[in-house]
């Protein structure tokens, strides 16, 4: 019986039963009073107090949990949250617990994680087979070779192979910020062969945190796709010099990575579309075959949320002619703490 009390349905039935009994007793009491078998009207006061008590219990025990559950269902329907529907609600009835279990199976984190990871690798691989990327890179190598400087050809080839190796190998979810930053710098180095000194990268870290911060864990391929997005959609179209800034900050419990560019920025409808995709939980993007703008951001965001929880993830702000900022919020955890 106690176990059944967790369902709102059982609570309603129980309160209704007590209310029925109470009202019946009140009616009997009224009759007895009218026939003057009960002399004191005090029983009316007790009846009223009993009624207030039942109402209060109904409010705390039924109304509030119902409102809370309803709110969670609303958030689930609008895509704000996935986890809360499984973890946080008071079930309406026993049958709905079974429905929740089914939803949990559908939303199986491992499946989604694998799908997201595969897509992250696919997006990265797409870079490798993207003709423009390949042509531009090879053209860079060729030009360098023609000029006869073998050392730079070697450097560039090394950067390219390191990038490929990092992207394809190691299937684990988490790497250190230092490793991810190295890969990002490597990617930027390759892109610099194409853009020359037209694009510049600055990494800002608090002096006291410089060594320590690089030990923190971050999902693999979380930073490089964002930098890539900034270059392709922000800086490439910009006339003149473009600056890319990666700002690393650490708090008691969080790691905040901000990737800012001073590129062309986004139109408001595009920004709103990306923000909506980041704020609502949906895995429709996994089905997308073409490489839409912002899909990499949504992928990184969903992986972070699946790995660390819904309170972490990406935030994007952008303005035409000013640039775009992507803020990554992660829990501060080191490999040994895992």
């Amino acid at each position: 019986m106690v176990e059944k009390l967790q369902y709102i349905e059982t609570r309603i039935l129980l309160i209704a039963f007590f209310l029925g009994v109470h009202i019946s007793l009140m009616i009997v009491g009224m009759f007895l009073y009218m026939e003057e078998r009960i002399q004191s009207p005090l029983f009316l006061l007790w009846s009223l107090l009993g009624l207030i008590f039942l109402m209060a219990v109904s409010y705390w025990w039924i109304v509030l949990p119902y409102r809370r559950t309803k709110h969670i269902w609303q958030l689930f329907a609008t895509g704000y949250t996935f986890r809360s529907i499984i973890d946080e609600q008071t079930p309406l009835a026993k049958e709905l617990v079974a429905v929740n279990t089914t939803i949990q199976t559908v939303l199986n984190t491992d499946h989604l994680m694998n799908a997201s990871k595969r897509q992250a690798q696919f997006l990265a691989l797409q870079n490798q087979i993207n003709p423009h990327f390949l042509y531009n890179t090879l053209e860079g190598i060729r030009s360098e070779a023609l000029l006869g400087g073998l050392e730079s050809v070697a450097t560039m080839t090394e950067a390219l192979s390191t990038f490929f190796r990092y992207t394809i190998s190691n299937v684990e979810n988490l790497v250190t910020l230092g490793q991810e930053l190295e890969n990002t710098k490597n990617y930027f180095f390759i892109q610099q062969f194409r853009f020359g000194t037209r694009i510049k990268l600055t990494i800002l870290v608090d002096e006291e945190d410089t060594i320590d911060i690089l030990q923190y864990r971050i999902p693999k391929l979380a930073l490089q796709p964002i930098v890539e997005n900034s270059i392709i959609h922000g800086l490439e179209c910009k006339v003149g010099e473009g600056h890319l800034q990666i700002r690393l900050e650490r708090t008691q419990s969080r790691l905040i990575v901000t990737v800012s560019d001073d590129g062309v920025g986004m139109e408001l409808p595009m920004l709103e579309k990306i923000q909506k995709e980041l704020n609502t939980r949906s895995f429709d993007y996994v089905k997308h075959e073409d490489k839409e703008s912002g899909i990499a951001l949504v992928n990184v965001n969903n992986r972070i949320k699946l790995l660390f929880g819904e309170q972490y993830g990406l935030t994007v702000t952008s303005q035409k002619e000013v640039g775009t900022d992507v803020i990554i919020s992660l829990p501060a955890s080191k490999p040994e703490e895992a």
Partner: protein
Amino acid sequence: MKEEVFRLEQVSLPPYLHDINIHLFKGEIVGLIGLNALGIEQLLTIFQKNISLHYGHVYCKDELVNDYLSSNHKQNNITVIERKSMLIDTLSVEENLFILKKGCKQHLIRYSLLSNQMQQLLAPLHLKLANKTLVAELTSFEKLVIQFIKAQLSRSSMVILKDISTFVSEIDLAKLKPILDYFSANGMTFLYVCNHHQEAFHFSNRCYLMREGKIIKHLYPDQMNDTIISQYSYEFKESIEEGSRQDQYSKPPLSSRDLVCSNLWYHDIKQLNIELHAGETVVLLDSENMILDQLFVLLSGVDVADSGSLLIHGKRPSLADRSIALVPEKPDQSLIFPQLSVMDNLLFTSDHKVPHLWLNRKRRAALGYELQKRFGNRLTDKVPSDFPQSYRLRLVYQRILLQKPTFLCAVQPFASIDMYQRMELISTYDVLKQRGTTILILAVSLSDTLQIADRLLLCKNGQIERQLLRHEFSQYNGIVGSRPT
């Protein structure tokens, strides 16, 4: 490692706030610039109190204090400093600081000890106050500093400074920076809320830019400049720099004088001499915040000067004179009568222009039909308190436009209003100027007043110290306010 004092993560409260992400570190001064007012009040409420959220998480000192699943409606230890001071005027500074605080359990009060402690706290701030000074005797700036100390003593997680340039003078604002730096070096965190980026940039380490209930930009120090901000406020820039509105200031003023104030003495006003020509707009900047209220009292005709004369259109000012319009500070609160309908609020100073206005319903209906475009279909409804500030402000200025005064005096018209309201107000003042209205603006800080001014009068020690013409406005180095280009 930075210590996070407050964090809002994906906070949503439709229709006011959408996906707000804000974090403040210990010892930081963070600016919050509202390009429009939507959501600012709600955001500040979320900082202060754990109200129900649609979605999101609120962390205070790294502890989850509020989220969309459970809101305990408790107050957070946050101090808000705004125009209305939290100090009690009739008590002394010591009593306000040490007795009116949580945890004060002393039954016997040793004033000498409290005064000693107060002097120790004031010493690094270079602020000198006599022992047992009543709060009522303090200047706005001194009250502000005492509130900082009170926040420090109550170990507030954060101090929100809301629109302080509307009650602290320009001179005092200049003195404020080292004081803020002192407190932030001692670990106090500030959220500086204002509408002007120049002001926020002057005080803050970094800034958040907010529009339509969303954070649209997180500005780091290297991004806190006019070039970047102009991309967000280009509508404002375009509207104020428009050629035809700039041309109206190139015309010379008429020779007739609408306001003459000569050798005026009254309380802190000492031998004040002002002359305003017909159709001229003049800003009187009292950077010490001493005489504005007193001058406004004299202009409203409530009191007379100790000596000297103050004449408007050659007569002593009178409240009943419909050729004079007076707009006090925050007119959206003080000049709206909630017991009257929107229509009556609009028309009650126009009866001298429309004969038998109150007897003739048809005339009122005809006027109402004209006004429906601006004020909607609810003209016969009473003005509810939940009408937006922009609507109420529009209502006040539309009343003045219908009244058609020849002289208008406004106190800080641009204080505490957002960019879009400022744009609307500038165009209203343009209409008044085109009608030949003589305008005197009384200001503690400049805000956008120079955009509508022909002359700037700088006041010191109760008298005019310096005058700047429109082409000389750039010579004035104030902290707050935009200047015409």
